[in-house]
């Protein structure tokens, strides 16, 4: 299969117009000794053959439609209304480029403006950018924002153990070239307050935290502000349908992964990183921004704005190198929030909440299992298990259940603990089956 339209006669006419006798001549600048290598690739295939091959590969996976998924830990199996993908499949959206020419890109631009508005209201913040790659890189960009706000005079970043372990890894990767100390997350018991000082540029927390706990960070935020540090909250956007927005306890930046809002799991990507902050930091934040304006005919319209922050204008002095971001995923979030609406998001959040609490209760009632959380939790919770989680999960797989995340992998203190997530796609029966299977696994 090929998507090249040229006929033999067109090719000949075009070569004549260019003044070559063969296409090879077009590549005369390429060093001859390495030109035109034989590539060890499979032979070309037809569409029919490719689909068969991919179908087989996809069937070699277990998918969350075949199994009850209690796995969360940063990626969540939610229901996506059909309308969302129908909108994403509009050719005019998904085959367009970044909207550099606003006169013929108002569809994308207005949709991003609406996305920015929705994220502002959801997080309680004043400005939102058009997206980052995912929640982890959005957090890294928040750390860079804080360094810029302090103009490089503060060289300490405080993370907390309740932030997703992979997010913390990404922050360290991004900042490895900067003279900076990253502290606060080496053990479960560490308290962020004890790290705050005049060198601290930012303290970051997660809400609900990685273990599902709903924590009010008001006093931490006050302490951070007292030393002049910024506060970043990594938030779960479905939880924000029910919980107080981070703006109410003093967040300066709210970031997170928008995957739960209408984006399929897709083995972890693509998703979208949302990033919202206070108006005063808008010129220091990275990423695309869409602003309202008017056109030469007096009509309201939208354009990419504050581009002097960006790499294509400012080059080596840009706030970030980000260019391509997650445009279509922002559209998915916009379509999702527009169709579930004010009542729908709250309902999804409550469904998750109630089902998670029922699940925690049922599991804790099984002999040997114990709920670890001592604070209110949202839709994830930690269970202390009488057997290694890996072993339990193998048993659950035999019952078509995807068990929880084995916390011992990242937190030595939590060996033998499992993190379970419950969404609106889990039925009461699934929870009862899970409890029964766990009971059976222990008895076995």
């Amino acid at each position, binding site marked *: 299969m090929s998507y090249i339209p040229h006929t033999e006669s067109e090719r000949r006419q075009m070569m004549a117009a260019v003044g070559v006798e063969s296409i090879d001549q077009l590549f005369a600048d390429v060093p001859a000794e390495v030109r035109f*290598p034989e590539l060890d690739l499979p032979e070309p295939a037809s569409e029919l053959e490719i689909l068969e091959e991919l179908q087989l590969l996809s069937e070699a996976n277990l998918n969350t439609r075949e199994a009850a998924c209690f796995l969360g830990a940063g990626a969540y199996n939610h229901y996506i209304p059909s309308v969302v993908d129908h909108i994403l499949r509009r050719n005019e959206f998904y085959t367009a480029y970044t909207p550099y020419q606003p006169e013929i890109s108002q569809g994308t631009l207005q949709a991003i403006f609406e996305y920015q508005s929705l994220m502002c209201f959801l997080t309680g913040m004043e400005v939102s950018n058009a997206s980052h790659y995912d929640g982890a890189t959005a957090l890294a960009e928040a750390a860079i924002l804080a360094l810029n706000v302090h103009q490089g005079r503060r060289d300490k970043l405080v993370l907390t153990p309740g932030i997703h372990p992979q997010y913390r890894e990404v922050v360290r990767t991004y900042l490895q070239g900067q003279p900076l100390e990253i502290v606060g997350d080496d053990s479960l018991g560490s308290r962020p307050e004890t790290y705050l000082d005049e060198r601290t540029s930012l303290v970051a927390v997660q809400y609900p935290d990685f273990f599902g706990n709903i924590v009010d960070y008001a006093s931490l935020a006050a302490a951070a502000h007292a030393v002049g540090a910024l506060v970043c909250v990594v938030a779960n956007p479905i939880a924000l349908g029910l919980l107080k927005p981070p703006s109410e306890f003093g967040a300066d930046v709210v970031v997170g992964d928008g995957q739960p809002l209408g984006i399929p799991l897709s083995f972890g990507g693509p998703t979208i990183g949302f990033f919202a902050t206070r108006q005063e930091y808008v010129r220091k934040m990275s990423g695309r921004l869409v602003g309202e304006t008017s056109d030469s005919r007096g009509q309201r319209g939208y354009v990419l704005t504050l581009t002097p922050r960006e790499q294509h204008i400012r080059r080596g002095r840009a706030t970030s*190198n980000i260019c391509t971001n997650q*445009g279509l995923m922002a559209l998915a979030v916009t379509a999702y929030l527009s169709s579930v609406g004010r009542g729908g998001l709250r309902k999804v959040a409550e469904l998750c909440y109630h089902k998670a609490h029922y699940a925690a209760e049922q599991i804790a009632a099984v002999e040997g299992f114990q709920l670890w959380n001592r604070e209110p939790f949202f839709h994830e919770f930690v269970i202390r298990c009488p057997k290694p989680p890996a072993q339990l999960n193998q048993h659950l797989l035999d019952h078509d259940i995807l068990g929880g995340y084995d916390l011992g992998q990242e937190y030595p203190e939590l060996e033998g603990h499992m993190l379970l997530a419950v969404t609106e796609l889990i039925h009461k029966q699934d929870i009862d089956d899970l409890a029964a299977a766990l009971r059976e696994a222990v008895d076995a």
Partner: protein
Amino acid sequence: MLEPLIYELSTPGRPGHRFPDPDVPRADLPAGMTRKELMLPELSELEVVRHFVRLSQLNHAIDTGFYPLGSCSMKYNPKVNEDAARLPGFAHSHPLQDLSTQQGSLALMFRLQQWLKEIGGFAGVSLQPAAGAHGELSGILMIRAYHHQRGQPQRNKILVPDSAHGTNPATTTMSGLRVVELPSDARGNVDLEALRAECDETVAGLMLTNPNTLGLFEEHVQEVVRLVHDAGGLVYGDGANMNALLGVVRPGDLGFDVLHFNLHKTFSTPHGGGGPGAGPVGVGDQLLDYLPGPVVAELEPETEDLPPLYGLEMPPKSIGRVKAFHGHFGMHVRAYSYIRSYGRSGMRAIADHAVLNANYLMAGLRQTYQVPFDRRCMHEFVAEGRFEFAPEIHALDISKRLMDYGFHPPTNYFPLIIREALMIEPTETESKPTLDAFVEAMLAIAEEARSEPELLKGAPHSTPFGRMDEVQAAKQLVLCCRPAELAPANP
């Protein structure tokens, strides 16, 4: 016609998508932690659909017309790729599932890694980076880590030609290194004398786009690479223009130590109105251990009865993770499908026709529009959007007038080193009649510039929107709809 904002279409109490009631007892909500208001719109599903369909109709897209945006490779996005990425086993699998339940996805990623290694001439590939700039960040961090590991932290200088994409210098700064800009010579190549002068014991590396953003193949590429290597530096390849090189030359064979691929340019995954893309990085032997990870590895080879067992491995000196989970897997599926479709014998045909199309367009335009370098181009070329006979006309005016002819304008005002640059990349999927129509429009516009310049100055005329006031947008800075502005539903 103007489409209202989603908030303006909202009607209090309008029922939207319905979810079932809970089938479990309700738990007490966390005291003092629930939110009082949630300002989301309320629309019926039909209202939502009409809103977004109408918005979509305000876009120009590859699927509606020619999109010759330079350095963006706006080629056709095959539809089967979209279907493939949505197969339930791909779209609905969780990234932290036990690897035994993910062998299909891992096999796909492993093969894609192998194919990209083969196409680029590299020893290893990581699929983790989410976009080209993300691949650049990974690559420059690897170069930095490599020098640090070898006890040469004083190597802190990255050389960047003046024709480079803005992401190159921005990446360098983000990585904690210093940018030194190199001039171009009279034929559009890296100026060798300037390069030689900078090749000292502080050079960490060079970032080179080849073909460069002028659409020209670097005539001294091997010499450039040798100079940097001899000075102890490494060479980064910006793979944005890889479409010109498929099956023509492998960057690894030219001595590049690391390169990012843009799956959304070269390998046909859709641009999505600004992402998601994917920016896998390929490396030679020296940087193999530094790749961002984890990467997919074959843990146990295939046996007579069993397929190979795939898993994830962290390279021993990895710069770390650059993203949560495994990269943009959905884009990996699409690129897999694309490479599979062209295969061994078809890969070169992509570059052949991309380069033929660009040279054909250049031949049609160069009598009328100045092309600053008298050379054959690769997959794109840069023309100057200005006329001696009409000094008031700029590249911007020509770009906007092209919209009236139904075309998306070329990339304009880039590269910065060409006055009034129009950077034109047709890609291989456009047919001769489309290219002819584009040339015809460009020639007609040049004629209009002479006879009716106001047609250009006021363009576009036939689009739903006229030129936007960008100054007003930056001055008044309205970045979201404000609650006070939320009008009640239309009567």
